């Protein structure tokens, strides 16, 4: 059961994987947005706290400066030196916002805000009730203490990271929760196939062995045709059995790689499928050169069987199949129904069938793909709707015999 579960984890189709990715990306974006919003609120509250602390200090400075201005106004013009303090800088402006005097570092001021930060400076504005020296506005300026800012940023990033990790754990938990029904149905299907496969083996072997042993020479023509149909049906089931066996049992076994003569293998498999092709009046056109490849014999047989079987299955009646073998590639071209361009990428998905009118589980090309990926071979599909499909497998250097 544990084996089935592990396999089921890998059973997600790419469309489901992309849906899962989209969900995770959306979830991540939402979490980041919520955290940014919370971070902004937190920052603003800390900024307000800082402002309220600074306001007390700045109000004291302003009060002190107003007293100095009052004295200066009283003693003017005997005293004309503008009052200065080492703790702050200041400026006075008249009611028409025209400068009277300023010791500020930057003359650009805002008259619409009582307290604001700009360029590492904090500015505080007070209105004067008595216009000493004609001043209506008094600005007090101090350098900003950046410590609160760095402390707040550290707090936001630390807390944000911790919350992000917690949310990520929740996200993974939810994903697993959502996927469980899907995984369960996959496991159920796999277990069903596995159980059925065991029950198929003995009867199919018995049918095929007995069909082979029958003496066709003494058989009436009518019966010979019936026997051929039995043979086709049994071979179709046998082919399906091979695929299912590979998928459920052989898939995880250790590969037994050896040099395989592909020309002989293809000839053998074409002969095997000849009766099935004959039933649809599909003819083979073989153009085979000698080629060997270092691969597991059972696996490459599954690849060839599935490509030929599909070429027959999806071919039109009286169509043909061209099989080409060269030193570095193998190609199967049929004259069948073809595939719509946008569906070409999906044909290797498990439980996907080109055409629902045809039988099968939709696992053949998925097996082909898994073997191709295991041996790092290159597969390419080109198809024209209602004209046919060509599947080509390129062998990489090192896997073929270069002699």
């Amino acid at each position, binding site marked *: 059961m544990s084996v089935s579960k592990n396999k089921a984890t890998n059973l997600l189709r790419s469309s489901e994987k992309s849906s899962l990715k989209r969900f995770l990306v959306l979830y991540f974006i939402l979490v980041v947005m919520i955290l940014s919003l919370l971070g902004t609120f937190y920052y603003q509250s800390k900024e307000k706290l800082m402002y309220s602390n600074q306001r007390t200090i700045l109000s004291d400075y302003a009060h002190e400066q107003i007293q100095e201005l009052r004295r200066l*106004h009283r003693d*003017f*013009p005997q005293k*004309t*030196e*503008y009052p200065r303090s080492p703790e702050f800088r200041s400026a006075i402006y*008249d*009611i*028409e916002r*025209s*400068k*009277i*005097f300023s010791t500020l570092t930057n003359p650009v001021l805002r008259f619409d805000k009582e307290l604001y930060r700009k360029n590492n400076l904090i500015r505080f504005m007070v209105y004067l009730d*008595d*216009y*000493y*020296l*004609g*001043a*209506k506005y008094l600005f007090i300026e101090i350098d900003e203490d950046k410590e609160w800012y760095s402390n707040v940023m550290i707090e936001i990033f630390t807390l944000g990271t911790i919350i992000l990790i917690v949310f990520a754990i929740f996200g993974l938990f939810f994903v697993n929760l959502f996927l469980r029904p899907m995984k369960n149905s996959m496991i159920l299907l796999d277990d069903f196939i596995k159980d059925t496969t065991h029950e198929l083996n003995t009867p199919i072997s018995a049918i095929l062995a007995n069909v082979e042993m029958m003496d066709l020479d003494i058989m009436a023509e009518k019966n010979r045709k019936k026997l051929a149909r039995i043979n086709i049906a049994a071979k179709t089931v046998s082919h399906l059995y091979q695929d299912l066996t590979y998928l459920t049992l052989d898939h995880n076994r250790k590969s037994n790689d050896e040099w395989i003569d592909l020309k002989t293998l293809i000839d053998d498999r074409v002969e095997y499928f000849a009766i099935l092709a004959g039933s649809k009046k599909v003819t083979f056109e073989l153009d085979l050169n000698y080629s060997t490849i270092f691969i597991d014999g059972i696996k490459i047989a599954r690849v060839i069987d599935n490509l030929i079987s599909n070429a027959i299955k999806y071919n039109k009646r009286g169509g043909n199949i061209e099989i080409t073998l060269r030193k570095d590639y193998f190609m199967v071209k049929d004259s069948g129904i073809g595939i719509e361009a946008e569906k070409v990428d999906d044909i290797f998905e498990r439980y996907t069938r080109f055409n629902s009118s045809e039988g099968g589980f939709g696992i053949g090309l998925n097996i082909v793909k898994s073997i191709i990926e295991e041996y790092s071979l290159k597969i390419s599909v080109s198809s024209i709707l209602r004209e046919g499909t060509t599947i080509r497998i390129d062998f990489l250097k090192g896997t073929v015999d270069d002699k």
Partner: protein
Amino acid sequence: MISKIVFVVFLTLSLTGKEFEQKLENKHNIYTQHCIPCHEHLPYSLEKIYMLYLKIFSGELTFKASLKAFLKEPMEETSVMPDEWIENFSVKEKTILTDKELDEAIDSYWELYDVRNKLH
């Protein structure tokens, strides 16, 4: 020809310069002739009164407009002077100056005591 043009330009410029200087002098003359003679005998100097005005009317335009309004229509209610002053010296009489002369005199007064030029 060129020398004639240069001569005409020079003559115009010298006349314009002279006119400007004359105007400036007139402006100050109005202030010196019509304001100082009365105020120089009073205990509150014109500068003190300037500072009193400035404390109540911030900004050049406001200052000048308020002073002009007061000089044209002096009243106890609109005077910036302390009550003791009004009791002792009463409110001044209406100005005899024209609006233009009054503006020129106030401009001179503002320029003379402008705190911006004195603060350092």
